Structure formats: structure tokens, C-alpha cells
């Protein structure tokens, strides 16, 4: 935008002109594509850091007994694996997609607040640094679980304070990013781009951004109360001072359950772009998809205590939360049915993005079903805090959100880089991920059913076989992701040139109205959408 104002007659050179070179291009960038790229690389880096932590956990659990790490370090690994994957890997990945795609898909030149966009990215590295350096504080990282439950968190060492500040900073970044996304979508659509004409990806992000603005302050409140309990003499979570430890859980999960959908809904958006493109058929039930997404978002505020069935609450409250929770299965089911109906009588091809989208559909639905099992309170009381829950949310987070992110990367990489990825290697990446993912996590359902609690560094002998299988799967899954890194680097450096519209069925503005690779400044004059 700045370039356009300074040199109104210079449109032909927008592509190359006026970006600072070297490192300052990135540090000072206000360009949505540069910032999107930084988000995605940051997210992948954090994915590797969190992945290494996961492998430490799985290596310790390969056999019964304590072999590799001490219990306190093990607890720290489970804590920071969760925090880093949720706040450092998955959430920034989808913000990266939002940055790259929303302006292009609605026909805008950039995000509404480019400088704030720069700030919301650059808040992430210090937060990540705090989470990583927490490991080196006296006493090591805080082994309290990613949910940071009080009073365990009020008795933890100084690493806990770093973690709290990291959460604050991540929250600020998310809120700013969300304000930017909401404003961009509501104010900067091209003429004729009615809300109900937007690609579904934009819709899912609009809804997600509202969720983020609503719940990140709640999380900030919860960790601030923990901070003042730790250092400033308050007793929010201490019964001896009139507080209640379970209050923390209520506040946390009031953030935490919408958070699940903050992660899942943009993933729905990506899949809703990919499946129609490779089915060569418009998305089935566009309007009902929008309504279903909005209902899921609204319902997500009303079900938080289903994470706390064993914490103790009146039976009436348990009944209410059970009924409200099973209700979520209805709009979620609608989405799954719509995707399958989109494929029905289409003309399907199975390039890597489509494979990952189908992997998402199949495994996310499985995670949804275990979610339904867990929503039934009497059954949940048996399975709560066991490996069944671990398996359930990894089906939703990994096979759900992560697979959808992979689908999105392979889908848009040609538009972003101007080059095609290697299809054979992409398929290898898919099949290896799919198989090893299931080897890792499917068996964890059995461990949970048999009664293995989560977050334990050592276990009884009857759990040994499945733990060994799961650990082997984890190493396979982790190593398969190095192949992904290789594929992306290879595409950027020496992939074949991609066409403007490499996917026959892709029909949003970035494919139909922009060259490949997408120019540095796109849509300085808004396209006309009919």
C-alpha cells in the first residue's frame, strides 16, 4: 500500500520494488505475505521443538522403569510439549495461512493494520524464548501440565513465572492478530464480495478471530491470578485463604474449550477449500457450513466443565454439561456430511493436498467419535485423565489440525512460491504420516481403556506392549516430518514452475485473478466480483 501511494504510476514494478533487502525486510515488514511466511516458518520451528519434547516423552515411555529422564523433567516435557504445540506451532500456522490468504481471497491489497501485523508476529519469538529458557531456570521447567492447574502451579519454581509471561505475550499477539483479521474481512472486501460469497476459509477465520478476542483475555486473567497467588499474597486458588483450586479450572476451561475450536475451525476452512477443488464440484451446503461453524463456536462457550467431570460439581451441572456437549456433535456431523456430499458424484483426483484433506476427514471424525464417547459423563469418569483422552485429542489436534495445515501448505505452495512440490515425495510424506500417526495414537485408546493415567513417567507392566508400539510410531512420525522440510525447501529452490491455476477445480480469487507466484502487492485496484 505504501508503495502504491508513493509511486502511483509505477504499478508494473510492484513485484520487485520497495522492499528493503536483507534481514530488515523481515524485521520491519508490513507486507501480509512476508508476515505470513514468517508465521509459517516460526510455526514449523516450534513444531520441531515441541516434537523433540514429544520424542523425549515417548522414549522414556518405551519401556517400564525410569531410563532416560527424571520424573520432574518428564513432567516439564509434557507441559512444554503441550504449550509449544498449541500456542507455538498450530495457532501461528493458521495465522500464517490467514495472513497469506485472506487479503488475496477477498480482493484486498493487504491486512487492515500492517504495522500491528508486524508487531503481532514479532511478539511470538520472545514468548517462545521464555518457554524454552524456562527449562534452564533453577529447578527446571514447571512440571504442571499445559493446563497449569493450581495449586500445583502456585508451588512450582521460577520457571512458572516465565511461562505465565509467555502466555501473556502469546495472548496479546493473538488478540492483535484477531483484530486485524476481523477488520480486514469486514472492511476490505472487494466490491461484490458479499459475506456469503467469501471462500469458506475466510468465514472460518472470521469466526475464529471472534473466539480468540473473547477467550484470550480469560486465559490472561487465569494466569494473572496464578501470578498474584504466587507472589502478591492473594488466595484466589487457595482454600486456606477462602479461595478454591477448582475456580482455576473453570476459568481455564472457559478459555480452553473454545481454544479447541480456535484450532479446529481454521482447519475446517482449509479442508473446505481443498475438497471442492479436487472434487471439481462446488462445496455442498455452503450456507449450512457457515451456520454449523457459527453454532460450534457459540456452543463452545457452554460446555467447558466437561473437562472437569471428576473435579466435583452438582449432579445437575454434570447433566447440563453432558447434554450441551453431545449437542456439539450435531453441527460437527453436518460439516462431515457436507464434505462427503461434496465428494459425492464429483470427479476426484488425489494429489497430496487432497490426500491430507481425506486423512483429516477420516481421522478427525474418529477423534470426534471418541469425543462423543467422552462426552457421556459416566463413561468419562472412567476415562478422564487416562491415555484415552490423550489419544482423543491427538486425533483432533494432529490428524485434525496438523493434517489440514499440511493439506493447505501443499495446496497453496505453488501460488506462494511459484513452484510445484514433488508429487511423489508429497505422497510419501502423507502415507508415512498417516501410518505412523495411527501406530502412535490408536493403541493409546487401549491403554486408556485399561486404566493407564496420563502424565506418568513410568507404568505398570500390563501397559508395556502398547507403549512400546506407540513409541516406535512416534519416532517414525517425527522423522517423517523431516521429509516435509526437505520437500518444502526443494520446492522453493528448484521446483518446477507452476501455472497460475495449477489445480483445475480451484476457484477463489487467488487462483483466478492473480499470477503465480502471487505478486508482492496484490489487488491494488480491487477486482470486481460478480
Amino acid at each position, binding site marked *: 500500500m505504501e508503495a502504491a501511494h508513493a509511486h502511483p504510476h509505477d504499478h508494473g514494478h510492484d513485484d520487485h520494488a520497495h522492499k528493503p533487502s536483507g534481514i530488515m525486510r523481515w524485521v520491519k515488514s508490513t507486507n501480509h505475505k512476508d508476515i505470513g511466511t514468517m508465521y509459517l516458518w516460526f510455526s514449523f520451528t516450534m513444531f520441531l521443538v515441541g516434537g523433540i519434547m514429544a520424542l523425549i516423552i515417548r522414549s522414556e515411555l518405551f519401556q517400564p*522403569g525410569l531410563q532416560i529422564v527424571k520424573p520432574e523433567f518428564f513432567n516439564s516435557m509434557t507441559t512444554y510439549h503441550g504449550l509449544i504445540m498449541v500456542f507455538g506451532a498450530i495457532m501461528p500456522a493458521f495465522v500464517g495461512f490467514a495472513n497469506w490468504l485472506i487479503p488475496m481471497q477477498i480482493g484486498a491489497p493487504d491486512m487492515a493494520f500492517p504495522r500491528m501485523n508486524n508487531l503481532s508476529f514479532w511478539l511470538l519469538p520472545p514468548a517462545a524464548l521464555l518457554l524454552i529458557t524456562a527449562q534452564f531456570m533453577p529447578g527446571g521447567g514447571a512440571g504442571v501440565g499445559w493446563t497449569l492447574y493450581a495449586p500445583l502451579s502456585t508451588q512450582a519454581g521460577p520457571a512458572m513465572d516465565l511461562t505465565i509471561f509467555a502466555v501473556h505475550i502469546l495472548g496479546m499477539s493473538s488478540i492483535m492478530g484477531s483484530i486485524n483479521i476481523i477488520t480486514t474481512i469486514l472492511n476490505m472486501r472487494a466490491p461484490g464480495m458479499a459475506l456469503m460469497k467469501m471462500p469458506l476459509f475466510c468465514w472460518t477465520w472470521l469466526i475464529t478471530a471472534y473466539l480468540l478476542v473473547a477467550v484470550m483475555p480469560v486465559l490472561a486473567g487465569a494466569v494473572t491470578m496464578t501470578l498474584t497467588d504466587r507472589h502478591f499474597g492473594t488466595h484466589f486458588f487457595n482454600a486456606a485463604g477462602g479461595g478454591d483450586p477448582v475456580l482455576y479450572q473453570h476459568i481455564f476451561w472457559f478459555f480452553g474449550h473454545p481454544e479447541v475450536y480456535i484450532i479446529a475451525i481454521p482447519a475446517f476452512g482449509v479442508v473446505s477449500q481443498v475438497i471442492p477443488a479436487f472434487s471439481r464440484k462446488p462445496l455442498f*451446503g455452503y450456507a449450512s457450513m457457515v451456520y454449523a461453524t457459527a453454532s460450534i463456536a457459540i456452543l463452545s462457550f457452554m460446555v467447558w466443565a466437561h473437562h472437569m467431570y*471428576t473435579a466435583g460439581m452438582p449432579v445437575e451441572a454434570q447433566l447440563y454439561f453432558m447434554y450441551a456437549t453431545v449437542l456439539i456433535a450435531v453441527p460437527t456431523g453436518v460439516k462431515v456430511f457436507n464434505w462427503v456430499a461434496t465428494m459425492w458424484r464429483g470427479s*476426484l483426483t488425489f494429489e497430496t493436498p487432497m490426500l491430507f484433506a481425506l486423512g483429516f476427514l477420516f481421522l478427525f471424525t474418529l477423534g470426534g467419535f471418541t469425543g462423543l464417547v467422552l462426552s457421556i459423563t459416566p463413561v468419562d469418569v472412567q476415562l478422564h485423565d487416562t491415555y484415552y483422552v490423550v489419544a482423543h485429542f491427538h486425533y483432533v489436534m494432529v490428524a485434525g489440525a496438523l493434517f489440514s495445515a499440511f493439506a493447505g501448505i501443499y495446496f497453496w505452495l505453488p501460488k506462494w512460491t511459484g513452484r510445484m512440490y514433488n508429487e511423489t515425495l508429497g505422497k510419501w510424506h502423507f502415507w508415512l504420516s498417516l501410518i505412523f500417526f495411527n501406530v502412535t495414537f490408536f493403541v493409546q485408546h487401549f491403554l486408556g481403556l485399561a486404566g493407564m493415567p496420563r502424565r*506418568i513417567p513410568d507404568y505398570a*507392566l500390563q501397559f508395556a506392549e502398547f507403549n512400546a508400539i506407540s513409541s516406535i510410531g512416534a519416532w517414525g512420525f517425527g522423522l517423517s516430518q523431516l521429509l516435509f522440510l526437505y520437500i518444502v525447501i526443494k520446492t522453493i529452490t528448484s521446483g518446477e514452475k507452476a501455472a497460475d491455476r495449477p489445480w483445475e477445480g480451484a476457484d477463489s480469487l487467488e487462483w483466478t485473478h492473480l499470477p503465480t507466484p502471487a505478486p508482492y502487492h496484490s489487488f491494488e485496484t480491487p477486482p470486481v466480483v460478480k
Partner: protein
Amino acid sequence: MSIKGFKKLAAAGALFFWSVAAWAEYKLNLQTPHTLLGEKIYDLHTIITVICFIIFIGVFGFMFYAVFKHRKSVGHKAAQFHESTTVEIAWTVIPFIILIALAVPATGTLVAMRDTSEPDLTIKATGYQWKWGYDYLKGEGEGISFYSMLSTPRAQIDGTDVAGRNANPHYLLETDNHVVVPVGKKIRILTTAADVIHAWYVPALAVKQDAVPGFIRDTWFKAEKPGIYRGQCAELCGKEHGFMPIVVEVMEPAKYTAWVGAQQKKVAAAKVDPNKTWTPEDLKAHGEKVYAQNCVACHQATGMGVPGAFPALSGSKVVNGPKADQIRLVLNGKQGTAMNAFKHLSDVDLAAVVTYTRNNWNNKTGEAIAPADVKALR
């Protein structure tokens, strides 16, 4: 079918059954329930899983049909339909009805689970970092009180005795004192905690209840059959979270009565004479036992603690300083650290353990703390 074909089929069948037998070693489902309520939950889980499985097959039957029949490579041309209000309404309403059908039996079971009224025996389970304390509050055995700790030897856990571990069928699921209850009686468990949140979880009895410090929660079970049922703490409670199991021993009523008698005799015998004068040696010897049960997980047998996490007692300023300060610290804990209050221990236990720490390792204060000193500071 030809003979050859039949042989092949038989071989395949044998292989199948062999692999089923091999898989029987692997636990694939919930533990066998030993309460009626547990059976209900087990059935509920089975019903939901089966319903989910049927829907799963249905939905993905459609998907895989499309994947194989509606692909471009077999020349399928894309239809362009993208809406159908009838279908949309159908697949909103039908799941809704299925869900209601699921919620009905779940409601009945939940209400029964939460009905803790009219128990035959009430036991309070208190979670400590990292052991359980039990107090028999009401019913036969009233007044019995004990701690229950992991009894698996450390050597099996840290890998110095792998053979012992492999030969131990109850590795990590064994305690020094079992929670003993009579069969066929309604047992109400009150849960609470002294420090952080723990959870009392015994899968075969279908109970899990968080133990929240400062609050009382409850749950109940009625075991159908004598036996030993094992569970673990299910809520992350710090370093030794994986090492505080729960073992419930269900006995025939007559045997239970005998157990209660034996316990009460033991309590009477162990009752410390309040007028007994403790020699420093007695205190130190008793203190070593108290230390091993309450302090060793953090401060270590060497008294050196874990650098950065848990302070050393050997050479410590507090332990070598005025005795009143140390006693207060042990009594009240230190806010904001893992050092909890140990008020629940008796005056004698506390006097003994403080004496022990003040005269062990590099600490040579030569002082003996009298139980009265502790009492005065409570």
C-alpha cells in the same frame, strides 16, 4: 470348494484364531467391572462405541464409494449440485434423535453414581505429595487410620533390578497398607488433599474422584466379589505423580471383622505413652522412619535435596539455626513452594524427624527436640 481351497481356508482360519489368542494378551477394553454400576458404565461405553462404529462405517462407506467410483481417472464427470434442504434437515435431525437416545441411559447411570446416601462404611482418602492417607470415619472399623505408600522397591524403578521388575506382577500398583473393605457393602469415599489436587481412581470399581485441597468430594462403590483391586492417582500432582497407587482389598464380612479387630489391637499397641520420656537415640531412630515416609522424595536420603528444586538439609541454615524456626517451617510449610505443611503428623513424629535432621549428615547440633516443643508451637 476344492480340497486345496478348503485347506487354505482352514489355515487362514487357524492363523486368525491364533492371532486372536495372541491379542488376548493385550488389554483392548475397559477393565472387567466388579460393581453393578461399573457394569452399567461398561455397557454404556459398549453401546456408544458400537453406535459410533456403525455411523462411521456408513459415512465412510459413502466416502470410499466416491473415492473409488467417482474419480476422474475412471472418467467420472462431476455433477454440479451443491444444495439440498431436505438432506440438510435430515442429517441434522437424525443425529439429534440418536443423541437423545444415548443421553437417556447415561442420565440414569449418572444419577445413580452420584447418590452417595446411606453408606455402610465411610472412609476419608487424603491425597498427599506423594501417598494416600485413609481414615475410617463411620461404620465398622471406625477410628482406623493409616497411610498407604508405594511398596515397589526403588531398585526396580530406577533399573538396578530389572529382573525383579519383570518378575513383579504388581509393579507400581502395590502399597504397604491396603484399603480393606467388606464385600457387598456400600462404601462411601470422601476425598480431600493436603497440598495439591490428586485423584482417587480404581478402574475395576469404576470410581474416580478428584481430591481437592481444602474441600471434600465424595464417591461410592459396592464391590460384588472379594479380591484386590488396583488403581493410581489420576491427577498430575508433581514429581512422584506416577508413584502413588491405590490398592483396595475387598474381604468377606467375617474376615473384614477380623481385620478390624487386628487393626484396633495394633493401634492400641502402637499408641505412644504420652508420659514417655524420649531419649535422643529413640527420637533419632523414630525420626529416620518418619523422614523415609514423608521427606525423602524431595530432600533425598543423602539430605542433599535436588539442586535448584528442593533445598539440601545437610548444612542448611534453617536446620542448623534456632529450633523454633525449623519446627514452625515443618508445621506450616512455606507458601509458594513444594514445602507443604506437615501439621497432620503427631507431635512425637515431628519432634523425632526434626531431631533426626538436626543430628544427621553434616548437621551436628546435638539437640533433641521434645514433643512438647512441637506442641507449644502448634
